[in-house]
């Protein structure tokens, strides 16, 4: 696998290389060709470049607001995407409206790119609900916390696409399943590879290798690059610079198009870095050194696109300022709406256990209501 067309890999390139179209210093690489002969490139208008930049800045800003809300006690927990904006925006923007995404708990950026109100996952993290929405309305499944489980759901959904005859053309549907480097160790994730291969499912496995599963570095999950896992299941694997929004877009789009055309699954390893803590409950200073974090700062996904836009005169300070302002306003709006989220009615916890409810549960709900009522006026 080659890093763009450059002969020698810089020290920002992992052994084995990856697909890169924009270097950390904002240099655009025309196209990148992998060992199997696939060539990736993008052909964006200036406006499109600018919108990608806006996406990156916005999702980072919203994420920062969530981190702040958590620190202020307004969220129970938050899983920050800091550092992974390019992987998420690149892949998220590569999705077509008919495609379906299965996220983990960290894909706020993808969610945003799907055009979904960014407040949606805050119910989960604030603890007012479990983050439920209608996956089919947004073509974006609910967040999945149990590591890896969603990859099987995605695979089954993709099998359904095939059964519905919705592959085999440029207008076909495809699925993208998100998961982390740690998740690749879970049996269920590997089963999803088995199934996808056997059923030639129209699915893209998008692994954000952010180098850590909580405190455990990648070496605890594998001793070879993760993208190589795919070949043993009969489909291609490709590693992309996950801090490069252009490459992330190009590789994901190609894989999705292959899937929708009936060519089956692809595993994408987006090589990136979790710049923040695993979640707000985590203290990364216990297990990683600051020089490592510093080194990755130099590969920042936003800075490189900004440098490129500036160098190419695609955008200037006015634009950058406006983007920051707009994102800031969005963030403040989000904050206000999060603070305004109503606490759940306790009795609502009995709702939606079953589509058809249950007489036993109805009785329990009633008893609960009576019990609650017994305190009324008692100052309880």
């Amino acid at each position, binding site marked *: 696998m080659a890093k763009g067309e450059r002969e020698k890999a810089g020290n920002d390139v992992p052994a084995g290389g990856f697909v890169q179209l924009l270097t950390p210093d904002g240099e655009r690489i025309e196209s990148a060709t992998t060992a199997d002969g696939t060539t990736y490139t993008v052909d964006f208008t200036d406006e499109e470049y600018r919108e990608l930049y806006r996406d990156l800045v916005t999702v980072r800003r919203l994420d920062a607001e969530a981190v702040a809300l958590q620190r202020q006690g307004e969220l129970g927990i938050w899983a920050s995407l800091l550092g992974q904006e390019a992987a998420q925006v690149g892949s998220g923007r590569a999705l077509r409206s008919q495609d379906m995404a299965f996220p983990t708990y960290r894909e706020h950026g993808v969610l945003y790119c799907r055009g979904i109100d960014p407040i949606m996952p805050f119910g989960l993290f604030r603890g007012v*609900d*479990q*983050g*439920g*929405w*209608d*996956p*089919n*309305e947004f073509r974006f*499944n*609910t967040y999945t916390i*149990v590591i890896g*489980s969603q*990859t*099987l*759901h*995605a*695979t*089954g*959904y*993709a*099998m*359904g*696409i095939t*059964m*519905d005859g919705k592959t085999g053309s440029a207008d076909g549907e495809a699925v993208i399943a998100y998961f982390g480097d740690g998740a690749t160790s879970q*049996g*269920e994730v590997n*089963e*999803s590879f*088995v*199934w996808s291969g*056997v059923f030639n499912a129209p699915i893209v496995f998008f692994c954000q290798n952010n180098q850590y599963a909580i405190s455990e570095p990648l070496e605890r999950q594998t001793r070879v690059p993760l993208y190589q896992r795919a070949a043993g299941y009969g489909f291609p694997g490709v590693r992309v610079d996950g801090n490069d929004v252009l490459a992330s877009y190009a590789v994901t789009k190609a894989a999705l198009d292959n899937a929708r055309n009936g060519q089956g699954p692809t595993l994408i390893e987006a090589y990136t870095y979790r710049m923040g803590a695993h979640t707000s409950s985590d203290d990364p200073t216990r297990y990683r050194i600051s020089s490592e974090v510093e080194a990755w700062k130099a590969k920042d996904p936003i800075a490189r696109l900004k440098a490129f836009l500036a160098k190419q005169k695609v955008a200037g300070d006015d634009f950058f300022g406006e983007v920051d302002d707009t994102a800031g306003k969005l963030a403040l709006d989000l904050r206000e709406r999060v603070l305004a989220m109503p606490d759940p009615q306790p009795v609502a916890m009995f*709702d*939606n*256990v*079953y*589509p*058809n409810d*249950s*007489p*036993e*549960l109805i009785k329990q709900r009633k008893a609960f209501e009576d019990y609650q009522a017994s305190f009324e006026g008692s100052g309880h």
Partner: protein
Amino acid sequence: MAETINLGKALNHGLRRSLENDPKVVIMGEDVGKLGGVFRITDGLQKDFGENRVIDTPLAEAGIIGTAVGLAIRGYRPVCEIQFDGFVFPAYNQIVSQVAKMHYRSKGNVRLPIVIRIPFGGGIGAVEHHSESPEAYFSHTPGLKVVTCSNPADAYAMIQQAIASDDPIVFFEPKRRYWEKGEVDLDLPLDGAYPLHAARTARPGNDATLLAYGPMVKVALDAAAAAAEDGRDLEVIDLRSLSPIDYPVIFDSVKRTGRAIVVHEAPGNLGLGSEIAARITEECFYSLEAPVLRVTGYDIPYPAARAEEEYLPDLDRVLDAVDRSFGW
């Protein structure tokens, strides 16, 4: 058209009718296609409905249930076969944390009309993992419904009702009764069928109440017949639904008889009998002439085949419990 068929065949007919009635119904599992399943419950279905409706899957139970979840999100109604009771555990994570919870998690936006068919129980002389009764693991799990059938007519109706229901349902099949015959009305309209989650009085009686389900209903009925010869008039209730349990029927009966005995193959400790006993005691405290007794498997792993006869509740053990109840 009423036919006399065995329980396995009744399930086969029920599955066929579900496949016919709803193009979204798909059957999936290990060996369910060409082979028709190791118990032939899906015999002939792949041939008639094709490989997209009756899917031979890779050998991975988590995969079966996990992909069924995805298919259900896509609008399908998967009917998953787990080959034997002891092989459901690789799928336990998907069942407990996804199948049971996604409707709740999504505030009702996602319905998972998944049926998980599990042949369960012993009495067939099998090796380890092929004779277990894991129903309590599922009944204890909010978000799942659990049913089981004891005779061909129920098998035929209940499998169709389970498939038609939007609730995720674990459907336990009493494997040692697969070959027992009974009359089945194959034209029975589903609307007219006995409600899926209702218990049924299999034999009315006044002196004590036997509560059983699945493979043990026959044992309970045999015991009641034997007791009748001794002048004891036992009521037998076939629970049919293990979650939720149809308690009103049970309480009515026990308030009349004053005595209850629960029979199941699963280990007694935290088996369904414990919950039923606790509930009966709560609701019928002043009617009880004796504590609710339980005739169950022992609290040991399912034993070797040549010891299973002594492990499994049988007529004698049920009658012994009846005696103990009367002697309390």
